[in-house]
C-alpha cells in the first residue's frame, strides 16, 4: 500500500522514536506517533499527573496517621477495582465474583508469610516481593480456571455463576479453619517485610502508617501504569472489541477464548495482590469479609468512578473508602443516626443505603461516573465563559 500511495509516506514519516520536539503554543499538535500514543500525551496531563503524584507522596508527612491508614486502604482497594475494571469494564465480562479472587490472594499471602509453627497454616516467607506476586499468581490461576465458563456463558448467566463463586468461596473459607481460623476467629494477615525490615511497624522509614501508606501508593502507581499500558496495547483493544461485539471480533482475528481467559487471569491477579495487601493494614483477616457485599463494593467503585478507565477506578475506590469515615462521623453530626448497630438507623445502614443509592443514581444520571463528571466540568471550563 505504501508504494501505491506516496502521499502516505509523507504524512507518515519514518517512525520516530522517543520524544520529538514539540511545537510551542499548539498543545494538540503531534509531531510523531510515539508522542501521540504516549500515556500522557499533552503537557497539561503530564504536569497535572506529576503534581498529583508529588502531592500524594507529600501527604505521607502532612496527614495524621489515622487518615494515612484510610488512604492506604483506599489505594489497595483501587488496585482491586482496577482489576475488576479490566475484566468487566474493558472486556465486558460481568463478574460478581471479585471478592472470591481477593480472598484467594489474601489467604495465599497470609499463609505464605505466616509463622511456620503457628496456630494456622504458615510457611514463614515474609518478604513482600515473594508473597505478593505469589498471591497474585494463585488468584490468577483460579481466574484462568473459571474463565472457560465465561467463554461458554453469555451476559447475565456469567454474572450469576460468578456470584455462585462468592458463595462457594465463603463456604470453603469458613470451613477450612486450618487456613482461615473460621468465622468470628480469623487469622493474622500477611506480614509485609522488605529485605528484613518490617513495613507494618514503626521503623527507620517513619511510623507504621507512613510506611504502609508509601508502600501502597508506590504499588498503586505501578499497577495503574501497567493497566494503562495494557489498555492501549493489542490486548486492551482485543478486550474492548470482545465487549463491544464479540462475533465481529472473532471474524477479524481476535481469539475469543484466549482473550477472555487472559482478562480473567489478569483481573484476578490484580484482585489477588489487592487481597494480599489489604489486610496487612489491620493485620487480621476474617473469612466473613469476602461476601457478596465486597463484590458489590468493587462494582460500586468501578461504576461510580467510571467504567473502562483506570483513573476512574482509582477515583471510585477513593470515593467509596472516604465515604466510610464520613458516615462513621455522622452520629456526632446528625442526632438521629446511631453509631450502635443495634439501633435504627445506624451508620452501617446509612452506609449501605448510600452504596445502593449512589450506584443507582450514577447509573441513571451519569453512566460515565466520576470520570464523566470530570469531563463535563473540564469541558465547561474549556469553553468558559461560553457555557454552550
Amino acid at each position: 500500500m505504501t508504494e501505491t500511495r506516496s502521499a502516505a509516506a509523507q504524512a507518515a514519516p519514518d517512525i520516530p522514536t522517543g520524544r520529538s520536539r514539540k511545537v510551542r503554543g499548539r498543545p494538540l499538535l503531534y509531531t510523531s506517533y510515539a508522542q501521540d500514543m504516549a500515556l500522557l500525551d499533552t503537557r497539561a496531563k503530564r504536569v497535572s499527573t506529576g503534581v498529583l503524584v508529588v502531592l500524594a507522596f507529600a501527604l505521607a508527612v502532612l496527614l495524621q496517621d489515622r487518615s494515612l491508614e484510610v488512604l492506604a486502604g483506599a489505594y489497595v482497594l483501587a488496585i482491586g477495582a482496577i482489576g475488576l475494571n479490566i475484566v468487566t469494564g474493558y472486556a465486558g465480562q460481568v463478574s460478581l465474583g471479585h471478592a472470591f479472587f481477593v480472598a484467594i490472594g489474601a489467604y495465599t499471602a497470609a499463609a505464605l508469610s505466616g509463622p511456620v509453627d503457628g496456630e494456622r497454616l504458615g510457611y514463614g516467607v515474609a518478604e513482600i516481593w515473594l508473597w505478593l506476586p505469589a498471591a497474585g499468581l494463585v488468584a490468577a490461576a483460579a481466574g484462568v480456571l473459571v474463565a472457560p465458563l465465561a467463554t461458554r456463558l453469555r451476559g447475565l448467566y456469567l454474572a450469576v455463576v460468578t456470584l455462585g463463586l462468592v458463595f462457594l468461596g465463603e463456604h470453603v473459607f469458613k470451613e477450612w479453619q486450618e487456613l482461615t481460623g473460621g468465622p468470628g476467629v480469623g487469622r493474622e494477615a500477611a506480614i509485609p517485610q522488605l529485605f528484613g525490615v518490617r513495613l507494618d511497624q514503626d521503623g527507620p522509614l517513619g511510623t507504621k502508617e507512613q510506611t504502609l501508606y508509601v508502600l501502597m501508593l508506590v504499588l498503586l502507581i505501578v499497577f495503574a501504569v501497567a493497566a494503562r499500558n495494557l489498555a492501549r496495547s493489542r490486548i486492551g483493544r482485543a478486550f474492548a472489541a470482545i465487549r463491544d461485539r464479540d462475533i465481529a471480533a472473532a471474524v477479524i482475528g481476535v481469539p475469543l477464548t484466549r482473550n477472555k481467559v487472559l482478562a480473567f487471569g489478569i483481573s484476578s491477579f490484580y484482585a489477588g495482590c489487592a487481597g494480599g495487601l489489604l489486610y496487612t493494614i489491620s493485620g487480621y483477616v476474617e473469612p466473613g469479609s469476602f461476601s457478596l457485599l465486597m463484590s458489590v463494593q468493587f462494582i460500586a467503585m468501578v461504576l461510580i468512578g467510571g467504567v473502562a478507565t483506570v483513573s476512574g477506578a482509582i477515583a471510585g475506590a477513593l470515593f467509596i473508602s472516604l465515604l466510610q469515615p464520613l458516615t462513621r462521623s455522622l452520629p456526632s453530626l446528625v442526632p438521629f443516626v446511631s453509631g450502635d448497630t443495634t439501633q435504627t438507623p445506624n451508620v452501617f445502614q446509612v452506609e449501605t443505603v448510600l452504596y445502593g443509592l449512589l450506584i443507582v443514581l450514577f447509573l441513571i444520571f451519569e453512566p460515565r461516573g466520576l470520570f464523566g463528571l470530570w469531563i463535563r466540568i473540564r469541558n465547561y471550563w474549556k469553553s468558559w465563559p461560553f457555557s454552550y
Partner: protein
Amino acid sequence: MKGLLESLIRGLGNGSVYALLALGFVIIYKATRVISFAQPALMLAGAVAVSYLAEVTGFYAAVLLSALLIAGVALAIERIAIRPMVGRPVFVVAIITLGIDVVVRVVVNAFIGRDVRQMGDPWGFTQVSLGPLVVQSRWLAMLVVTAVLVGLLFAFFRFTKYGLAMRAAAFDQEIALAQGVSVGMVFALSWGLAGFLAAIAGMFVGTGQGIEQLTWVVALKALPAIIVGGLDSLGGAVVGGLVVGVVESLFQSYQGEFAPWLGQNVAVVSPYIVMLIVLLVRPYGLFGTREVERV
C-alpha cells in the same frame, strides 16, 4: 427409605418456594431481559408485611394483602428506576436492581429489628402423617399453594389478553410493539407479578422458624434454580426450583454420612454446585433457549 422419602418431601416443599421466587426472576427476565437482583428484598418485605398485618387482619387476609402490597412496591420500583433505563445495557439495569435491593433491604431491616419475627401462620412446625411418613404440614402447604399458583400463572399466560401480550413481547418485542402491545404495560405487569410471588415465597420462608434480617439470602437460592432451568423458561423455573430444593434437602440429610470430608453445611452451597455441573453440560440450562446472534 422412609427417611429418604421424608427428605424428598421437605426438598419439594422448600423447592416449591424457590420455584415461586424463580418464576419471578424469569417473568421479569422474559419481559425485560434483565435479572432483577431486587427479588431478595421484595421477598423479605413480603414476609415482614405478613408478620405485621397478621396481627391485625388474621393470617390469610394478611398474606393476600401483603402480596398485593409488595406487588405495588415492585410496580413503583419499576416505574421509578427501571422504566427510565429502557434501552440501556442489561448489565447496567441489573446492577441498578442490585442497588435497589440493598436500599430496600435496609428499610425492611428497620422493621425487623434484632428479633425473629413470626408469621402467625397456622402451620408452625406441626407434623402430619402420610401413611408411614411423618412430614411437616408447612411443606405440604408450600407444595399445594405453589401448585395452585403455578396453575393460575400458566392459565394467565395462556388464556388472558395480558398474558398473551406478555408472551408476545417476550417472543419478539418489536413485532409485539407493532401489534399494539404496550411495552410499559408488559414491564409493569412483570414486576408486579414477580413482587406478588416473592411476597408469598417470603411468607413461606418465614413459616416455622420466622424471619430475621439475614433471611434474605434464602432468595439467592432461586438464582441457581433459574440457571439450572434456563433463564427464559417458566417451566424451567419450576423444575429448577424443585431440583435445587431436593438436592439441598438430600445434602442436609445425607452429606454428613456419605461425604463428611466436604465439611459442614455443604447443603448451603449445594445449589451452586448443581448449577455449575448443569452449566458445564448445558450452557443455557435445561430448558433455556440458546441465544443465536446473527451478523
